[in-house]
């Protein structure tokens, strides 16, 4: 392993500050080649180390979550790139009512047309704010889009073939939370909490370059977070004793809280979380609904992305409020529907 940490690595760090093309430099391309070579050469010992049953089952679950979520991720990324490139942001500003109080539910429902996961909705919401959409409406869109779009709802229906009411519950609860947060921001929010989002735009490039640039960035970015989520889910499934989850599942209140916290920690893409929720079959449907409502609205990676896009003072206030409201709404909707 000492060979990997050879001197060239630090050079790559400062590449942006040095004139390019001056001799040989260690870039991430070389890093990738080196890494792949090491993995291929060392596959024997690595495979032996991974042959314990617990590691095998960890890897199987890990791969299962990634392989199963990737097609949905790719589909969402393609559609969101098409929307970002071929639908001008000014269209959204024109389509929304002028009164912010009315714009909030309209933007919330409009979230249904952005097929993608939460990773896609953060940049779109940032663009909306930049184009003069009322922040309260943009935030309602930010929260509703990852949860109520057709792809996510279809995935939910596929994951819960025996409980179609989960799809309706997810739709209603998510929309209610999104609107409530929008109105709450309109009432209490202050503009100085919100740092105007600055983000590289693809303007100036051709449409094709912008489209594929967006696809590449979103797959690499969301894919990386998907791997994190899959690792956490696999660890939970392969290592945590089932009796522990059973204890939490026994008490209705603890079950809801436990799965809400789990949703925040796992940070699973909203296009894949329904399948994980379906596997947590020892929990009540209401607890699993809370998992599905909380997850797309607030989790660790989303908090990081929101802080990056809108500023930390915004994220620190917005995230806890969303978390509490999402749990309350899930319990309410669960009591009525499930």
């Amino acid at each position: 392993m000492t060979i990997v940490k050879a001197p060239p690595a630090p050079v790559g760090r400062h590449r942006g500050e040095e004139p390019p093309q001056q001799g040989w430099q260690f870039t991430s391309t070389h890093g990738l080649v080196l890494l792949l070579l090491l993995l291929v050469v060392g596959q024997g010992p690595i495979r032996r180390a991974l042959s314990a049953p617990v590691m095998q089952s960890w890897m199987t679950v890990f791969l299962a979550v990634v392989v199963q979520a990737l097609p949905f991720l790719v589909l969402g990324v393609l559609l969101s790139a098409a929307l970002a490139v071929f639908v001008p942001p000014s269209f959204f500003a024109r389509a929304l009512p002028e009164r912010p109080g009315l714009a909030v539910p309209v933007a919330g429902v409009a979230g249904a047309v952005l097929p993608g996961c939460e990773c896609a909705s953060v940049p779109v919401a940032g663009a909306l704010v930049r184009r003069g959409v009322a922040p309260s409406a943009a935030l309602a869109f930010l929260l509703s889009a990852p949860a109520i779009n057709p792809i996510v709802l279809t995935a939910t229906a596929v994951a819960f073939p025996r409980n179609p009411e989960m799809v309706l519950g997810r739709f209603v609860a998510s929309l209610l939370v999104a609107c409530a947060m929008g109105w709450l921001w309109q009432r209490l929010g202050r503009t100085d909490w919100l740092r105007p989002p600055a983000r590289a735009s693809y303007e100036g490039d051709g449409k094709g370059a912008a489209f594929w640039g967006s696809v590449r960035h979103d797959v690499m970015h969301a894919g990386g977070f998907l791997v994190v989520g899959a690792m956490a889910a696999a660890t939970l499934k392969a290592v945590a004793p089932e009796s522990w989850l059973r204890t939490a599942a026994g008490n209705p209140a603890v079950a809801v809280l436990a799965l809400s916290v789990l949703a925040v920690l796992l940070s699973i893409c909203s296009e894949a979380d329904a399948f994980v929720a379906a596997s947590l079959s020892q929990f009540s449907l209401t607890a699993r609904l809370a998992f599905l409502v909380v997850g797309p609205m607030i989790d660790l990676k989303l908090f990081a992305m929101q802080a990056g896009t809108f500023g930390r003072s915004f994220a620190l206030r917005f995230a806890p409020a969303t978390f509490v409201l999402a749990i309350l709404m899930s319990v309410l909707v669960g009591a009525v529907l499930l």
Partner: protein
Amino acid sequence: MNRQAQAAVLFLVGGAMLHAGTTSLYLRYVKAGLQPLLLAAGAVLIVAAAATAWYELRRARDTRRRAETGSADAGHGDVQDGHDGHDDDRGHGHREPRISWLLVLPLFALILVAPPALGSYSALRSGTALQPPLAYPALPSGDPVSLSLVDYAGRAAYGHGRSLGGRTVEVTGFVALDRGGTPYLVRMALNCCAADAQPVKIGLSGKLPPVLQPDSWLEVTGTYTGKRAEDPVNGGIIPFIDVTAARPVPTPKDPYDESWNQ
């Protein structure tokens, strides 16, 4: 990670998806119905990789041309380069995601390790997922009659074997031995992917092979027995089968029971 490396990773991930989707490898991890989606996603990723590489080549050519035409423009090109990533820490929203390095992990796991479908380890950690069957349709013809493990377990546990009519049956599953050494024949049932797979277990009694290897696949011939046990994990019913013959079989193409999907 710079764009060349990203193109390489996109290509490799897309290729791995195509590889898994065109062989029966994907059946170890997800349900059979996902195959077209897997292939489509793999193809899109490969196109995205090609497009990334092509635009990257063109950008490099433009930058070089600008550098040749004047020094002022060359400076501009340099700034552009920084903005476009290359492991750059300064720009906030402009940084290429470092988290993408993690995509190498599933690639490695899928191509170099290709772990087997869930086996006895997972089966013994979770309780049996046997549900009462909706109906007991008439048995197909044949002697012995070939039944899925889940079908036999449902008829034996909830129909008390009455719908089996004393006939000899043949079921296939993998072997799991609990701590006390009781042998079970198990099939994992799944809704969507291995993350939600749950075991359905039947106990083996009667004439068993002298050595039972966990995770090996067996085709067991036998008859209904009233013997049953309680699953220590969740208290579910584990019916037994009175074995008359058992023969080792290769792992089936689809190791999971997907009858829940139909």
